């Protein structure tokens, strides 16, 4: 239902503390995205973006664990 895409925070503009804007890099495409809902986000973090808002901070450890799980599966006979 909701198209959301992960991207990396390259810079944060907190001029408006109620609506900090992140400069998000989606594999070479940049867009300003509201970080209002991920106040804990820092430059370098990955966030999941929907309709101009970061809706979740991407947990890179969880992602790495999932990928490792798939790789293990690949190796099965």
């Amino acid at each position, binding site marked *: 239902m909701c*198209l959301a*895409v992960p991207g990396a925070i390259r810079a944060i503009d907190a001029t408006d503390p109620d609506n900090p804007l992140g400069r998000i890099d*989606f*594999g070479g*495409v*940049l*867009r300003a995205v509201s970080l209002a809902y991920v106040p804990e986000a820092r430059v370098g973090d990955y966030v999941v973006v929907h309709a101009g808002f970061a809706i979740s901070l991407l947990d890179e450890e969880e992602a790495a664990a999932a990928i490792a799980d798939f790789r293990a599966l690949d190796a099965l006979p």
Partner: protein
Amino acid sequence: MSDIACPLPITDYPNVLLAHGGGGRLMHEMLTRRVLPALGITDSGQTDAALQELGGARLAFTTDGYVVKPLFFPGGDIGRLAVSGTVNDLAMMGAVPHVLSLSLILEEGLPFETLDRVLASIRATADAAGVRIVTGDTKVVDRGKADGLFINTAGIGTVPAGLTLGPAQVREGDAILVSGDLGRHGIAVLAEREGIGFETVIESDVACLHRLVAKLLEAGIELHCLRDLTRGGLASAAVEIAQAGRLGITLEEAAIPVAAPVEAACELLGLDPLHVANEGRMVIFCPQAQAEAALDCLRADPLGAGAALVGRVHRDSPGRVALQTRIGSLRALDMLSGEQLPRIC
């Protein structure tokens, strides 16, 4: 729980929508059901330009309107587009382009500085392509009636004796090649447009392809069909050719070159790169045995550096295009439906 409550079908639009110009199925329907019958045209030929025998010469003749917004975008502008688009329509017939007409529709209030920049770009593109602008026209319309300026160009080229390209020449077993990575033009223009707010490093692929076609012919490649991949993208072109040639096409998703930022922009906006417009890319149908030679020839030229073998023609399910997905399954590939609209869900 209540029962079904559905809307009235919109079976026919009473007015023209932007989607009717999107290069997809709606435009196709408008042309085949309305425009061509109204003009009494029964043999549209399904090619980018008309092939006419006049006084012993084989001429390719084409015309095209250019209404891009913004007028200047990364990698090009409306002037460059207006020359290369028409040159490419001729080139897709295997023609050598010679002369162009140029019709300008200017909006009241357009800064002369803008017009001068566009004219300079037209001249530079035409000079580089080796075509001459030999006739033209200028009109001015009220403020608000055009996005700065519209351009129409028509072009004439000569087709070498014995050479006929088109969907009817496509054969079972043909290889399908693209001349480079897809989607750059559409995304570059979209990114510049208001309401999207993207910054990208993506430049439009806008370019004249006639020299690349000439190189393929010189290399002895037996070309069957060429199509420049403008609005509607590779998917729409493949479907049109499959339908017109009554053959089946299978494309391999993993083999289709798409630059990473184009792919990313498509992910963000919910678009399919196979439907996104290009202005300097073509699809090439030639015998399988010559696919490698054709690729070598394309890749030796900067405009074809990203060329790839992306599919093949077969006799199964004629008129249909299948895509072999990255995970190995097959799915149908369709023409772009209407205007390409970014989506959030």
